[in-house]
């Protein structure tokens, strides 16, 4: 298993993801620069949190056009795994690799706090290590995390069991309490909470590791 962490100008959780994947989980991991036009031997792409291009215009709007995102789209189309965390989720929506959009939190403020998430589906390479209905304690840190989609899209997400995580107490006004969704083929995952901030006991929770461990589990059984 080899992880590739995308780096855009303004990414700022790239090193955190790197730290967790290498130091905590002992995985082979490397950075993928936004100007790169190939992913090389990367099996799972992580699009980290941060403020790519300063979040100017709209979150994720500019990053989506980078050369690296073109190859990420190809990777996804070929069935490769992609996780977008926070800004990564926003970028995946802008890139139409996931449906819907993330708009400003209902209270118009940035919110950094621990939240509880409910695992709604374990049928994915990103949640298979969780128990169905399990509660995860993972932090959020975003100003634009309110998930929005048209009713038909929401229906489809629900019908296809693609809402993987919901907030137990909706912090940001997200439609249907959605915290994380996957694509139709279940290999692209976007979530607003930061599992890489909850992967070590000393940081207050290890629940986030389940997300990465699911990926390893999926790879081992692929």
């Amino acid at each position, binding site marked *: 298993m080899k992880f590739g962490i995308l780096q855009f100008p303004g990414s700022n959780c790239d090193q955190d993801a790197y730290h967790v994947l290498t130091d905590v989980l002992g995985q082979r991991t490397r950075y993928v620069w936004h100007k790169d036009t190939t992913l090389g031997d990367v099996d799972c792409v992580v699009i980290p949190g941060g403020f790519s291009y300063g979040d100017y*215009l709209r979150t994720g*709007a500019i990053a989506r056009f980078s050369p690296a995102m073109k190859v990420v789209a190809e990777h996804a189309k070929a069935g490769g795994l992609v996780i977008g965390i926070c800004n990564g989720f926003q970028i995946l929506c802008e890139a139409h690799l996931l449906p819907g959009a993330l*708009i400003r939190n209902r209270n118009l403020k940035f919110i950094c706090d621990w939240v509880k998430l409910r695992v709604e589906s374990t049928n994915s390479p990103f949640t298979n290590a969780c128990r169905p209905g399990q509660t995860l304690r993972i932090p959020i840190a975003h100003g634009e995390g309110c998930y929005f989609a048209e009713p038909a899209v929401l229906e489809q997400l629900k019908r296809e069991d693609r809402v993987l995580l919901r907030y137990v107490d909706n912090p940001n006004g997200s439609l249907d309490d959605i915290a994380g969704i996957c694509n139709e083929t279940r290999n692209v995952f976007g979530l607003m909470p930061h599992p890489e901030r909850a992967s070590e006991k000393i940081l207050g929770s290890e629940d986030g590791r389940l997300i990465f461990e699911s990926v390893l589990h999926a790879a081992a059984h692929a």
Partner: protein
Amino acid sequence: MKAKIIVMPKKTVLDPQGKTVKHALESMNFTGIKDVRVGKFMEIELEGGTKAELQKKIDEACHKLLSNPVIEEYTFEIQ
């Protein structure tokens, strides 16, 4: 030439900013407000190209980058 672009949240998307502005206006004793919506205004100064060419280019830019069709709609004018 100049392109003036307006990007507004779609009617179906909630606009907490608009709501907040409405409240704030009301607390300033501004009565009779039915609705407030807050969007973006962009001004692009352009060089070269005919109006028709620019029309096409700006439309593309709006569609691809400057607005997100999932949540927003745009209009523009070239002068």
